[in-house]
């Protein structure tokens, strides 16, 4: 019988893991205790985190924390490795449409300084390469490419540029100057169609001029050609259509999981596990099939808990809509420790949660989903979706977390705050969360507590 849902620290998870093994836990090849990631990978941050106590959560964490090892194994088996950068969720769909190709997301190295509590020195090494703290922590990716201690050197590097994060473009350019060849593709700034332009509907209730969709489609065609050359197989419409169906399977699962967890009377899964799970939408953590298995497990766990009226966070918790991913995972625990719960999220890739249209030619569908990226359009569009989701999920307050140095929109928080306040009148705060936020915990805690107090007072 499963124990009641609760959060465990790493020591408690050691005991829980032993119990699960005694009870006959069946794990995939990457399974094992969470502790081993601290011992072998120096993921010291795990010692400061609280984890869900389910076997499904254990599988999720092991899946996340073994990505680099699995990529190295895939390389050894002869798979082609593609690094897809900046684009959040479109090129990986194309890469996974080809057999023997694995895409990963080097940008994901931005969590390495957090997980390793900076013992990896990646941020310092990035500074030595001329990318200092005025840039987003994604800069950790730069030395990770060179020291080979994390992910394998990709066979092909693809990066979107144009209407994307300036920081990232600068970091990727530095990478290229250091000898890592990059296939660039252009992403135009999404705009509303003019009166005399043909308009295209995009996922997420957005529209764009057809000319922009055509532009992105042409760019993706170029990307597809390069991927096909790498795989030794043409990336034709049939391949792509199958890849889109597979990606939609992940997106559907994630949407069911989000719906189950965020609409429940209390949270059946913690915020931290939900954040990690949602991230799988972008790149499948380098293994599409296993992503489905991991999400299936989490969804089953969440549904069972809701059915049994068992929750990991109390029903009284303040319902928070969270905007942007956090550089330090500890922040998600902190919110719950102070009496909040997540009831909705926009971790900067909401378009990767939308279903890719299956009734359009595949490249056209991918171009439309790529253009629906919240990062390539006006923040007001993003805020409009946040407002809709806040209303749908009965959010009581919004947290916009800032990533130190990130410059994709300097006024993002202010714009979101203004629109949320005007349209639904709930409080909004901005928090800057560095990769290791220990020194700031009292301050962060105070701000979150003030937000929760304010939201609770509004219940009266």
């Amino acid at each position, binding site marked *: 019988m499963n124990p009641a849902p609760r959060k465990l620290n790493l020591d408690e998870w050691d005991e829980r893991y032993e119990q699960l093994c005694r009870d006959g836990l069946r794990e995939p090849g990457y399974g094992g205790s969470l502790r081993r990631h601290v011992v072998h990978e120096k993921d010291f941050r795990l010692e400061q985190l609280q984890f869900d106590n389910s076997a499904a959560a254990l599988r999720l964490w092991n899946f996340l924390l073994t990505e680099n090892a699995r990529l190295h194994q895939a390389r050894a088996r002869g798979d082609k490795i593609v690094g897809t950068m900046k684009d959040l969720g479109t090129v990986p769909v194309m890469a996974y449409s080809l057999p023997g190709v694995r895409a990963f997301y080097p940008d994901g190295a931005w969590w390495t300084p957090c997980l390793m509590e900076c013992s990896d020195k990646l941020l310092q090494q990035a500074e030595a390469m001329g990318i200092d703290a005025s840039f987003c922590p994604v800069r950790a990716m730069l030395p990770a490419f060179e020291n080979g201690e994390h992910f394998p050197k990709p066979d092909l590097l693809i990066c979107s540029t144009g209407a994307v994060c300036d920081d990232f473009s600068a970091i990727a350019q530095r990478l290229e100057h250091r000898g890592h060849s990059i296939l660039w593709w252009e992403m135009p700034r999404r705009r509303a169609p003019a009166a005399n332009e043909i308009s295209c509907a995009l996922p997420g209730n957005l529209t764009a001029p057809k000319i922009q969709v055509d532009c992105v489609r042409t760019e993706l065609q170029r990307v597809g050609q390069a991927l096909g050359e790498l795989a030794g197989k043409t990336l034709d419409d049939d391949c792509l259509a199958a890849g889109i169906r597979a990606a939609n399977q992940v997106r559907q699962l994630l949407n069911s999981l989000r719906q189950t967890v965020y609409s429940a009377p209390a949270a059946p899964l913690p915020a931290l596990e939900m954040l990690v799970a949602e991230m799988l939408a972008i790149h499948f953590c380098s293994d599409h099939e296993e992503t489905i298995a991991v999400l299936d497990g989490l969804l089953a766990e969440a549904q069972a808990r809701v059915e049994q009226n068992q929750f990991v966070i109390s029903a009284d918790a303040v319902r928070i809509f969270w905007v942007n991913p956090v550089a330090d995972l500890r922040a998600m625990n902190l919110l719950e420790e102070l009496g909040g719960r997540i009831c909705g999220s926009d971790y900067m890739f909401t378009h990767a949660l939308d279903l890719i249209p299956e009734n359009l030619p595949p490249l056209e569908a991918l171009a439309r989903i790529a253009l629906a990226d919240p990062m390539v359009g006006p923040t007001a569009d993003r805020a409009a979706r946040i407002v809709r989701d806040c209303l749908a999920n009965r959010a009581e307050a919004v947290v916009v977390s800032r990533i130190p140095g990130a410059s994709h929109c300097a006024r993002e928080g*202010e714009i979101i*705050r203004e629109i949320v306040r005007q349209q639904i009148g709930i409080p*909004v705060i901005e*928090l800057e969360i560095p990769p290791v936020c220990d020194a700031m915990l*009292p301050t962060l805690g105070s701000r979150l507590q*003030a937000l929760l*107090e304010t939201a*609770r*007072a509004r219940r*009266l």
Partner: protein
Amino acid sequence: MIYAGIDAGSRSIKAVLFDTSRLQILASGLADQGVEQERLATELFEKLLRDAGLERSQISGVVATGYGRNAIRFADTTITEITCHARGVHQLAPDARTIIEIGGQDSKVIVLEAGGRVRDFAMNDRCAAGTGRFLEMVATRLDMNWEKLSALAQQSTKPAIISNMCVVFAETEIIGLLASGQPLPDVVAGVQNSIATRVAALAGRFISPPVCFTGGVALQSGMARALEEVLACPVRVAPQPQFTGALGAALSAKPANKNGDGGL
């Protein structure tokens, strides 16, 4: 019934004893903050009890707020400064719709609904340039106390322009201004304007009049005027502005003691 509020701020500890039957502050006091926060707060609290001729047993509840609130273990509960300043200001100025609080280490803008409930708030978390720490640095550099600094600003005829957003670099700028013969009152007024500008940026577009100015920095002559200029609306200084947080904490102690839910 009498309640106590302790505001353990970054620079000083403030305490208030409030009689909810007579709606009257019975005693208030302030002490410098230090490492032993709880001892300092206890000493201040006991002094207030002596001043008011009260025994500890006559206090029906104690709420701590402020940066160091969690260190005050004799408090029945803790509540954040946002809620406490809102309650304190609402008690003193019920028509206030925006509170600007500039403390030693941070600054806040709090928007109130009619009835005093917090609608939204923003806090400065980026630098010391919008806080009292900036004025403290200037006072130390000029080797003068807080009151004299305040009086000096009143004499300014043409406030200096402090262009640097970083307090550390602004100090260098101030040294340069003084070396170039800029009158002292103009430099101090320039610093006040610089703080006001930072706070205005924090407030963004969500200022609703009437605006009430509170926190220790509100005692500085000229700060309210500097805020009025950048916000383009009247700014009223709260009575005893350094105590509004502690007063709000004392006011919050009543329901907190009754309902055990932090008074919210």
